[in-house]
């Protein structure tokens, strides 16, 4: 895994326990597990090759700590990310407020980063419609406003999960052609590279 070349950096943002890790786990290992499981050592970073047409794009998926106490550090995480999947829990309206916060941060600091809004736990909504606290159309309006994609997923059933990441890979593929055929521009890389320590200085 270490040696795997990664084409695009994708960050997962979202409040604690909205299901970022489960989402990645479902996408990478096609499973949803409740309770103890030992097969994987950690799901914080995964590299996953995805087929786009006849090409293979490897997404490097970065999990981030969602706790509020690390909020100030989150910009260090999404430096140089080509895509950010901002997650919120459909049964928890406060998680969507936090999602709005990240969207704002991304728009301010990382203009080249595409934003994907991802509502999680649709299976809970299907079981009990009253559990929904975040309205689909509100989010869709918000997504249109910020030019983001919008998905509602369930890591438990796998609903919409592959579609989400497939979209991410496709968008990366088409945008990388726009920027420069083949390799990502080096200037861009350099800019991205510098950012972690610039960010450290900010504090």
């Amino acid at each position: 895994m270490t040696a795997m070349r990664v084409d695009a950096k994708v960050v997962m943002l979202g409040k604690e326990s909205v299901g970022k890790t489960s989402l990645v786990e479902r996408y990478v290992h096609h499973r949803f597990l409740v309770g103890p499981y030992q097969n994987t050592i950690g799901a914080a970073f995964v590299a996953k090759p995805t087929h786009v047409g006849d090409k293979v794009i490897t997404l490097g998926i970065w999990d981030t700590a969602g706790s509020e106490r690390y909020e100030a550090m989150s910009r260090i995480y999404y430096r140089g990310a080509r895509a950010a999947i901002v997650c919120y829990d459909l049964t928890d309206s406060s998680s969507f407020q936090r999602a709005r916060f990240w969207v704002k941060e991304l728009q301010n600091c990382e203009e080249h980063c595409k934003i994907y809004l991802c509502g999680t736990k649709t299976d809970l909504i299907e079981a009990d419609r009253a559990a929904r606290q975040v309205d689909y159309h509100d989010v869709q309006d918000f997504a249109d406003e910020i030019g983001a994609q919008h998905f509602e997923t369930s890591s438990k059933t796998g609903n919409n999960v592959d579609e989400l990441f497939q979209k991410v890979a496709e968008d990366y593929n088409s945008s990388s052609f726009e920027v420069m055929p083949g390799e990502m521009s080096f200037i861009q890389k350099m800019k991205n590279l510098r950012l972690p320590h610039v960010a450290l200085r900010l504090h």
Partner: protein
Amino acid sequence: MDFFCAVVAKFAKSTVVVIKCVCVCQGKMSQRAERRGIHVDQSELLCKKGCGYYGNAAWQGLCSKCWREEYQRARQKQIQEDWALAEKLQREEEEAAYASSQGGQSQPSAASQVPPPLAPFSKFEEKKTNEKTRKVTTVKKFFSPSSRTAPKKEPHEGKAPSPSISRQSSLETDRVSRDFVDFLKNLQKPGREIHKQCRAFIEGMSNKKDLSADELSECVQDFYQNMSDRLMAHFKGSSERVERVMDQVEQYIMTRLYKNVFCPETTDDEKKDLATQNRIRALHWVTIQMLCVPLDEEIPEVSDSVVKAITDVIEMDSRRVPRDKLACITSCSKHIFNAIRVTKSEPASADDFLPALIYIVLKANPPRLQSNIQYITRFCNPSRLMTGEDGYYFTNLCCAVAFIEKLDAQSLNLSAEDFERYMSGQGSPSGAGMEADQMWAGSGPAAASPAVAQAQRQLEALTALTQRQEQVLSGVCELQAELQQWELSVMRQVKGILDRYPLELRPPPPDSAPITAPAPTIDSANTDDDRLPPPLTPQLFAK
């Protein structure tokens, strides 16, 4: 001459030169000893050259004037010899480097080898090359003022640091250079080109010492880019091979540049290092519970992984190549993941990992943390730092450091007063949810930190063990005493019985009965024969 020898011995890096000097010295001394006779003839006192003046044993029997002439001649000769040797060594080394960069036959440890056949263009190549090893440079530097032949231009002669330091670091540098050359051999012609460019770049960098750290970084990054673009064209887009070569290039140039670009004086990296170090020291009281770290150090495997993680993150400082430093961080992270997995028995997410990493950094207080982070950021090959797994862990480390710098009462779920008190060292937390004052009154120092608690538990276990051992020991003693007593008692009994019945041997019945006969006689005394006198005999002995 002695002085001369001493100076040469001190400065010359070439052992051959030193040995030669020592030999010369010993020769002088033995001569001197021979001449220290008791009977001195008048003729022996005169100068050996026969100039009519008196000689001196210390001057090998010469007068002062003749001795000076002789000495000058010998010295000149010595200088020339050393000079020739230095040149030879240098030539050998350069040839070896050149020959192997050519993709030719291997020349391991050039200095100790027989000189390879001279290539006709080696002389020319020599001038271009910048890769003179420091030992030759130093020897040359010492001799060049007195030698008649003009020394060759030394582009970075003034930069040669003190001999002892350069000797240490040159060991690693030499090893890396050899590996690099070996690696490039497989690439044939482009390999030679790469080697040439790298050397030219290093030479260029040594002239840019006045640049700021960011400008240096820019230079290195530009070099990476050019190199990688060229390789990309050469390998026709096979990014895997490009990456492999780039790794080697990075290792080679960064090992050589490390000294000049790590924590350079133009930056305040060092100040930041100290600030961070002090900050972490001041935060020694932060516990696992405050950071909400899902680690249970009571499980042996977990505490084992924690120790390994700490070792790895400290190890980072000792590496020179950014990639190797990153590998240390990655290895540290893997150990943390393992510890979390064992504790929670499920894979760790970033929500678990970051606090754990912060905790590890606080416990380890890695040396020159800021310098290392800056160094990696400035000089690491960007493709690695950007997206890959190493980059992820490095980013987490940056976050951890940023968190530690900014850390306040709120981020530990403490009240501002408590935080102030702990920071000023006036109190220390006694554990999750407990007031600091309670600690002193109540639960004792065991609760102060998990390490103390653990130490105490182990102490208790040790005490228990000692007690049990003592019990066993005393049991053994008892058993031994019992055994001895038993032995004694057996002996006593035997003796008693023997004492009681010695007579059986003495009064052999006149009718020549067998020795055992009396016993049955006694036993059957009543039944058999009651007119016998024997009943009297036991009475006599019972007294």
